[in-house]
């Protein structure tokens, strides 16, 4: 099953199970089914609760906030996550604030789905990874799509928390298959670490034998795996990959024993540097593993640049598997 299908069926199940679930977004109804086809079929089965909207990102998120305020569960698709910039006020200054600014807890069940990321040739305003801009807002949870995490569980967790949440969806994942049964391919296996918000852990033979640890959100999975494979086959360097589902708030504790065993910790993100999730993570890890880190944590980002449209230029700017491969090589020689 492809990741987009998994997400689609998670949405379908939610709509079927709960009369109070709404899905709103531009061009999401059938037969079009959304720019990335994630909502395909939903409006046909639930016409009154799956609504195609005008081009009004701010108002769509605002209306979803209103539904949530009235006790419904609202899911919004922003066609390209870049346009969540137009809903920044509704997300940060209304929905998140409302959970506590009235002096008591007001649960708001609201998910804003944001397709993000490049390598698809969509150009500078349709390819960004804007996660960092939403980081650190009280009562705003950030999740990222991953090929490990079943979206039925992810969406359920997001709604159950009763705080507004954003699901960042790296577009390159939609057509990838969901991993299953702890096996990725001939080389890699995976399991989950941490009970509450499970982090996928990818390993070679055994989860406790590794040189470096890569931490990366879901969208980087395949690039990281390619790099890890090459590092193993070419340099006999083995790495562990940790892929969380929830980026913020983030619970470091269950990962600390794993991180403590790394030659080097590498945090990989597609975003440009500066105030990123990875930077936040790094500065949290340093004090927690004070005196136990063998080398500084390495952050891998895309270049400090707009994302060009032409494939050859875009490729150079964004983090690729060889960017991660290079980081692993340097880690081995650190």
């Amino acid at each position, binding site marked *: 099953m492809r990741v987009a299908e998994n997400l689609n069926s998670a949405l379908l199940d939610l709509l079927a199970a709960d009369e109070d679930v709404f899905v709103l977004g531009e061009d999401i109804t059938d037969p079009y089914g959304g720019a990335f086809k994630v909502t395909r079929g939903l409006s046909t089965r639930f016409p009154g609760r799956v609504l195609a909207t005008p081009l009004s990102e*701010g*108002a769509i998120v*605002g209306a979803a*906030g*209103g*539904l949530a305020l009235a006790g419904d569960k609202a899911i919004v698709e922003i066609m390209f996550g870049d346009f969540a910039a137009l809903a920044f006020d*509704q997300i940060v200054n209304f929905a998140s604030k409302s959970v506590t*600014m*009235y*002096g008591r807890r007001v649960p708001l069940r609201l998910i804003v789905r944001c397709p993000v990321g490049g390598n698809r040739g969509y150009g500078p305003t349709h390819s960004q990874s804007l996660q960092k801009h939403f980081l650190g807002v009280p009562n705003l949870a950030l999740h990222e799509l991953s090929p490990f995490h079943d979206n039925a569980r992810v969406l359920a967790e997001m709604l159950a928390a009763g705080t507004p949440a954003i699901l960042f969806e790296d577009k390159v994942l939609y057509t990838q298959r969901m991993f299953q049964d702890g096996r990725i391919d001939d080389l890699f296996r995976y399991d989950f670490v941490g009970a509450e918000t499970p982090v996928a852990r990818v390993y070679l033979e055994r989860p406790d034998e590794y040189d470096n640890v890569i931490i990366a959100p879901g969208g980087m999975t395949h690039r990281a795996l390619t790099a890890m494979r090459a590092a193993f086959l070419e340099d006999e360097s083995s790495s562990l990959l940790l892929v969380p589902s929830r980026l913020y708030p983030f619970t470091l504790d269950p990962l600390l024993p794993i991180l403590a065993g790394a030659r080097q910790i590498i945090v990989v993100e597609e975003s440009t540097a500066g105030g990123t999730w990875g930077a936040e993570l790094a500065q949290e890890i340093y004090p927690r593993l004070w005196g136990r880190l063998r080398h500084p944590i390495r952050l891998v980002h895309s270049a400090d640049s707009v994302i060009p449209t032409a494939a050859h230029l875009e490729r150079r700017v964004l983090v690729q598997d060889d960017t991660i491969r290079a980081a692993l090589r340097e880690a081995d020689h650190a």
Partner: protein
Amino acid sequence: MTVTTERRLSRLAAADLDTMLLIRHFELGLLDLFEQGKLNGTTHTCLGQEYIPVALGPLLVDGDHVFSNHRGHGHYLSRFGDAHGLLAEIMGRQGAVCNGVGGSQHILRGTYLSTGVQGQSLPVAAGVALHLRRGGDPLLAAAYIGDGTWGEGAVYEALNLARLWSLPLLVVVEHNRIAQSTRTEDQMAGTIAGRAQAFGIRHQRIAGADVNAIRELLTPLVEEVRHRREPAVVEFDTYRVGPHSKGDDSRDRPLIEEAARHDWYRLYAEDHPEQFAPADRRQRDRVAQIIHEVAARPASAWESPCA
């Protein structure tokens, strides 16, 4: 169509006059507290506009949602009468309706909610109206906004949704000819009537402060929003008698005087002196008493997330 109510104000039911005077003295009390340095932060009084929420009051039912804005004390008091809770909120004392966290601009009580970011509430109200539309009962969402708030794009995005989806959304515009310090003609091209029409939304303009007449006029319109589930814009042609917040009235004297001339408080006192004077005294005393009581309370408690 604009309906101008008669110059002579019809006689109010005692309860209505009391609410209007409660709001008036509440607001005057706040300005006074500010002057004495007993309040911090900011506040926006609705002096001169008190009659609007009072007129609307009985047209709204319990399950209706009301969205208020920065200038919301009258909206709150007309709905709940609860001057203690509101004052405690503004003063950060025990019994505060939102534990002192929201303050003057951010109040939530039942289906009543106010926010301090202009324009933000309309899309939210549209979403609530979408929720109400699905329910069995003929409920509506009413949202108060000022003339200046029509500068915000969110207003238009919401109107479009409301009309497209046939939402029971009542937009109540308090057009007081000014936004903070900026006269309406300097911040609004065209008219509110035209802007409602542009979205195929019914619009009603109301001049004058006769509560009984306003109510009579609006009763069928509100019922239509409710039962036909169609949005409407009601625009009150009104006057801000006081400053924007506290002591920041930079209007020319003639403009301030014009506002004062239209103040229902003065007009009603003239038209119904025998009813007005004792009621006025009662509410003044009542507010003084409330201020006295609330000011004596300990600070509000909030289980804040920090130590």
